[in-house]
């Protein structure tokens, strides 16, 4: 019997999709002929809303740009504002920021692990990973007062000092995580069913990855040592010792291994941060929200999020409002140029697998 050419929508309501987006798939049999990404289901017009608000007011909205990992946004925003306004942050605040960023990276990797394992039906991993992520969220709740949207990294520092005994609790968590991550190796990373599904699927070539501006695990998975923390160190990352893990094959499994190795590196960084945490103030004096003015200038700042380089373009115009803020997250190019390319010739059952390995996060594509 001849296979019919059909078009189906993978999402937005679909368990195997990373958030609220959809992919239109042209299929013959189970093989994908053409994939078209559709986004916009989460478009809120952040860039317009930020133009309407003063700097201090806009600070609360930026963390909503990427839901699974809000802290890189806050850090980026704060760094851009500080650069434009010429503020210098205290060392303690910088160390606390690094700690928050690394904890959130760890949390995002756990969320990825749950999604990636769920995409091939290993649901036990998801149950564990989300529960372990919650332990990090508990720490966040203690530090910042909220579980997910922390609104903590503020232009000029961080909003609260560390609560008493917080560093000890971080250390306890680190010891637990170090032990726990081995279990994930056993049941997920080394799992034969994951390997057999993931090896050789969704291969990206090195040249393409460089030319098309892919970032994060996609780059590192095909052997390029690119990491903003090393290439253009921000905060105090140049005082900390860590490695950039890479793989060479460029497939889904390579990206999984890179992420797993990054979790180890995050633990290593956190270990150093806890030991090196300096004393001092966490907040410098900044003007009130009607008087906080940015000069007519622009800048481009970037941080390394759990999914790769996350960059902001910010332009001030001499008033207390931001003239323009453009978000350039990792997902925009990944979800269109990369995903549409990778899916051609792939099987329908691999769509969720490939998508999860790229770490696509829709709210940051359309903003």
């Amino acid at each position, binding site marked *: 019997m001849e296979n019919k050419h059909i078009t189906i929508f993978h999402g937005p309501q679909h368990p195997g999709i990373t958030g609220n987006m959809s992919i239109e798939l042209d299929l013959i049999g189970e093989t994908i002929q053409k994939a078209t990404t559709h986004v*916009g289901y989460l478009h809120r017009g952040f860039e317009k809303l930020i133009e309407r608000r003063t700097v201090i007011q806009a600070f609360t909205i930026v963390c909503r740009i990427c839901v699974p990992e809000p802290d890189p946004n806050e850090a980026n925003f704060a760094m851009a504002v500080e650069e434009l306004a010429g503020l210098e942050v205290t060392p303690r605040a910088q160390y606390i920021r690094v700690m928050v960023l690394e904890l959130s990276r760890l949390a995002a990797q756990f969320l990825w692990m749950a999604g990636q394992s769920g995409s091939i039906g290993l649901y036990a991993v998801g149950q564990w990973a989300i529960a372990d992520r919650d332990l990090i969220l508990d720490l966040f709740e203690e530090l910042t007062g909220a579980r997910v949207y922390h609104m903590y990294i503020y232009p000029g520092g961080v909003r609260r000092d560390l609560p008493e005994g917080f560093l000890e609790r971080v250390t306890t968590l680190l010891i637990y995580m170090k032990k726990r991550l081995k279990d994930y190796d056993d049941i997920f990373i080394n799992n034969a069913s994951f390997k057999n599904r993931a090896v050789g699927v969704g291969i990206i070539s090195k040249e393409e990855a460089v030319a098309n*501006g892919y970032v994060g695990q996609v780059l590192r998975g095909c052997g390029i040592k690119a990491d903003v923390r090393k290439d253009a160190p921000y905060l105090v990352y140049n005082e900390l010792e860590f490695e950039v893990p890479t793989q060479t094959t460029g497939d889904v499994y390579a990206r999984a291994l890179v992420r797993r190795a990054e979790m180890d590196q995050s633990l290593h960084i956190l270990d150093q941060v806890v030991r090196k945490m300096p004393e001092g103030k966490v907040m410098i004096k900044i003007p009130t929200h009607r008087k906080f003015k940015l000069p007519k200038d622009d800048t481009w700042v970037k941080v390394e999020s759990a999914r790769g380089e996350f960059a902001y373009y910010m332009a001030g115009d001499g008033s207390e409002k931001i003239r323009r803020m453009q978000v350039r997250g990792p997902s925009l190019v990944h979800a269109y*140029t990369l995903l549409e390319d990778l899916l051609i010739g792939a099987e329908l059952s691999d769509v969720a697998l490939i998508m999860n390995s790229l770490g696509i996060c829709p709210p940051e594509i359309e903003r």
Partner: protein
Amino acid sequence: MFNEIKQRFATDDVEVKRNDLYKVRIKYSRLFELMHMLRDEYDYKTLNAITCTDWIEEGHFALTYMLTTEDRKYTFMIQTMINREDAQAKTLSHEYKQAQIMERDLHEMYGIDFPGNENLKELSLESWVHTPPLRREFDTLEFVTNHLIFREGREDNVDTKAETKRLRAEKKAQKSKDEEVKDGK
């Protein structure tokens, strides 16, 4: 590198923003020449982003292209001004694959036309017929109040400044009245 740019493109507007971030302002007509030069001679191989800023007072859009070196260490911001009315820029989608989606985003948000880009469909908005939303003349609050209804029950909000003034005036009046009464005695 800066000297060469200054000489070849007759511009003084090159600044070092950070040790890894440079910026140059250039006329639109020389933009692509500069980009090709940076790409071929100085290893700025990746187009990282295209952004647009609306300077409505001066009547132009500032298009900024972010180019990154192959090792992702240095970023070059190339800024060019295009006319706000009937804005148009040449597409880069044939040289950089990712430019297609970035231009599509700008086309939707600012209404800039990129001739040569085959895929300028709507991206995140669905059947949008108003002004492109990120242009400065589009007032989002006005749009919302015209099209949508907020929840009722908050009409008893008091303007505190006016209220303070009123109370003060009242008090003053009361006081002077008291004094009058006193004096009258």
